[in-house]
């Protein structure tokens, strides 16, 4: 297993590049450098993990193509360096090695540089090619990354050259000097947005395949403008995007009109895709969830035969059932009331709908009889379920103050109580008004980092789009199909976690702890069992390559209860932590089914005897989960000081 550890070690040592420097590079790196000098900067870049956007190395440890120097790509000033015909005849000084700089016969644009790529001559860039790009747009840019396809693009755009404003020629001119495939494609975008020709050379390089978009898509997405520096994920995850194009509207994953995620339209069509392996798994003779062989079937259910929480009809992976049906998460209902506040512009929040439904007896995995079970151990009252609340107040009751309203609401289902002073109370946890406000602010930061916009959709920036891009790069496995709904922790869940942290970290302030809630934002990858270990490693590599810092990894495959790998990462752009779990379909299925158990287990008010009982049941459920090959060899990790 030392080999496996070597691979993981290489990943988890942020200061170790994980490869030996080429002799030439090492020779160029003296021991003593003046801080801030070019050599110092170069040395620091060398220390970045391979695949990092600024690292000179790709994920596979090959060296990236040299970056173009801006001075080689800058535009000529008006009135200078004109050709005989008065148009820009500046010969490009890019990295093309061909006979660049021949004046364009038509006087339109200039250089005809054949690039360093073997096929670059096919996509010889003429000035008119560049100018034609204004019509090229998206397709051109994407095709550029595809290499030979870009050649066709270039030809196509040649024919469109006549449509372009003369002013573009100078830009095209500069770009063409690179003489690489796709150069022209990228430049079209830039043309359209005031011609940031400086960038086009780099884009061309990307199209040539070596960098393959490191910086490529960044500019594409920005629609001709520089991407904001505060959106590092665009750059970070770009290298693989051109090939996968997970956000390609034509692919159907995203609604073009609203830019919102449409699970049913694309590769996450229903539960079929992701859970197909699970179906196979469960359909096999050894299927632990096979209804006919279900170890948790009605006859064996220690709780209630009529309310078997593991009944096939309640299986969240049941094709006939709505995956992750809120009705299957009985303690989630209280979040409903906060849905509008949390997503004020998101009409899609209907899934948070009826709180009453979440508490219907049939949805309770503990007991389907009329005695649903609270995490705190006390059974729900009938008034908890229905008929509570908003009836006419008793005479003389103050109905105007917040306390009065809160008290009425609290009489009902498992809902948080907001005090007159702004304090918060729920499930035996309490936050003062100030602490509650701190939680609001901290979750607000998470919301921004997560990436959902005010319209409820996603653009290119943010953690969730970055995670989707990472997912698209994986050879095996997927994120949960409803990742967008799960990524951001619900407000009351966040406050509950913060309240627990405040109690158990008495030597830390609430403000510090609010930034340490590990799962304010969280993601879950599901891998096939046979690929689990390698896929987890690959996902780590992609996450690191996207600029995220691993802080903690817990390998729980040897655990009696929770099985899987959990990890905590830091998003340096937002200085926030987020959680990533790595599961198989089977382990995730148990985590889902055992969620109410876990909630009760971790509720401080649960009696010790009952907690032991719940843990035993959880362990019994988890014992049925097959451990993937190599999973137990995944090393634990904790960054110093994390």
């Amino acid at each position, binding site marked *: 297993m030392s080999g496996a550890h070597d691979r993981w070690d290489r990943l988890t040592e942020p200061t170790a590049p994980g490869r030996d420097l080429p002799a030439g590079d090492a020779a160029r790196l003296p021991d003593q450098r003046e801080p801030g000098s070019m050599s110092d900067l170069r040395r620091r870049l060398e220390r970045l993990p391979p695949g990092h956007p600024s690292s000179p190395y790709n994920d596979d440890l090959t060296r990236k193509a040299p970056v173009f120097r801006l001075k080689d790509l800058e535009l000529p000033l008006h009135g200078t360096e004109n050709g005989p015909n008065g148009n820009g005849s500046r010969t490009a000084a890019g990295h093309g090695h061909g006979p660049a700089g021949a004046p364009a016969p038509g006087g339109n644009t200039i250089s005809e540089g054949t690039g360093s790529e073997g096929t670059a001559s096919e996509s010889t860039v003429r000035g008119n090619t560049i100018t034609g790009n204004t019509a090229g747009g998206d397709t051109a840019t994407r095709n550029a990354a595809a290499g030979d396809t870009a050649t066709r693009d270039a030809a196509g755009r040649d024919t469109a050259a006549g449509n372009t404003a003369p002013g573009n020629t100078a830009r095209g001119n500069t770009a063409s000097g690179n003489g690489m495939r796709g150069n022209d494609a990228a430049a079209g975008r830039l043309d359209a947005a005031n011609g940031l020709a400086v960038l086009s050379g780099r884009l061309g390089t990307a199209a040539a395949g070596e960098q393959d978009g490191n910086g490529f898509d960044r500019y594409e997405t920005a629609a001709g403008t520089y991407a904001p520096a505060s959106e590092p994920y665009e750059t970070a995850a770009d290298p693989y995007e051109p090939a996968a194009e997970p956000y390609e509207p034509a692919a159907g994953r995203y609604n073009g009109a609203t830019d919102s995620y449409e699970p049913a339209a694309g590769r996450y069509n229903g539960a079929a895709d992701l859970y197909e392996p699970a179906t196979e798994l469960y359909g096999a003779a050894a299927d632990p969830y096979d209804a006919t062989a279900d170890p948790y079937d009605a006859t064996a259910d220690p709780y209630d035969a009529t309310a078997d929480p593991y009944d096939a009809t309640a299986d969240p992976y049941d094709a006939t059932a709505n995956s992750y049906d809120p009705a299957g998460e009985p303690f989630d209902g209280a979040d409903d009331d906060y849905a509008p506040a949390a997503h004020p512009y998101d009409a899609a929040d209907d899934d948070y709908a009826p709180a009453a439904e979440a508490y219907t007896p049939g949805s309770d995995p503990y007991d389907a009889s009329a005695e649903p079970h609270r995490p705190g151990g006390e059974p729900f009252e009938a008034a908890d379920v229905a008929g509570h609340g908003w009836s006419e107040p008793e005479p003389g009751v103050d109905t105007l103050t917040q306390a009065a309203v809160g008290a009425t609401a609290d009489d009902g289902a498992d809902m948080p109580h907001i005090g007159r002073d702004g304090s918060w109370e729920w499930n035996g946890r309490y936050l003062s008004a100030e602490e509650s406000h701190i939680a609001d602010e901290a979750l607000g930061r998470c919301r921004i980092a997560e990436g959902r916009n005010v319209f409820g959709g996603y653009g290119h920036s943010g953690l969730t789009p970055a995670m989707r891009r990472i997912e698209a790069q994986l050879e095996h496995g997927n994120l949960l199909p409803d990742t967008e709904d799960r990524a951001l922790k619900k407000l009351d869940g966040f406050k509950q976690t913060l309240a*627990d942290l405040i109690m158990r970290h008495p030597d830390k302030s609430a403000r510090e702890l609010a930034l340490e809630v590990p799962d304010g934002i969280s993601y879950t990858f599901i891998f096939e069992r046979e690929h689990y270990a390698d896929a987890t490693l690959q996902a780590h590599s992609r996450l690191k390559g996207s600029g995220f810092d691993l802080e903690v990894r817990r390998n729980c495959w040897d655990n009696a209860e929770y099985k899987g790998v959990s990890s905590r990462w830091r998003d340096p752009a937002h200085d926030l932590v987020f959680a990533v779990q790595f599961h198989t379909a089977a382990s995730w299925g148990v985590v889902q089914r055992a969620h109410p158990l876990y909630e009760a287990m971790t509720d*401080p008010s649960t009696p010790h005897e009952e907690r032991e009982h719940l843990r035993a049941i959880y362990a019994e459920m988890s014992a049925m989960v097959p451990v993937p090959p190599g999973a137990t060899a995944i090393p634990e990790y*904790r960054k110093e000081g994390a």
Partner: protein
Amino acid sequence: MPGEVSYYAIVGVGRTAQAPSGLARRRYGGADGRLRIDEALRRELTWEPDAAIVEWENGDAGANLVPVSEAAAARLVAGWRVLWDGER
């Protein structure tokens, strides 16, 4: 096992086992002495039921729990007593 108490330093971000941000303990009770009773130290210097150990055992990627001796735990409590009493 009955009567045995295990102590854990709760090490939050930026802390160490020598300077943790909290302290948890597990006692064993019940008729057979196998009942796990988990508690954490509160700012009032009282031990209250807490799920920090259970969560840590179940893969929580938050604070680290580091086993410490009873003597080390006592020193931590004494230090906090001085610190927090001074703040009150």
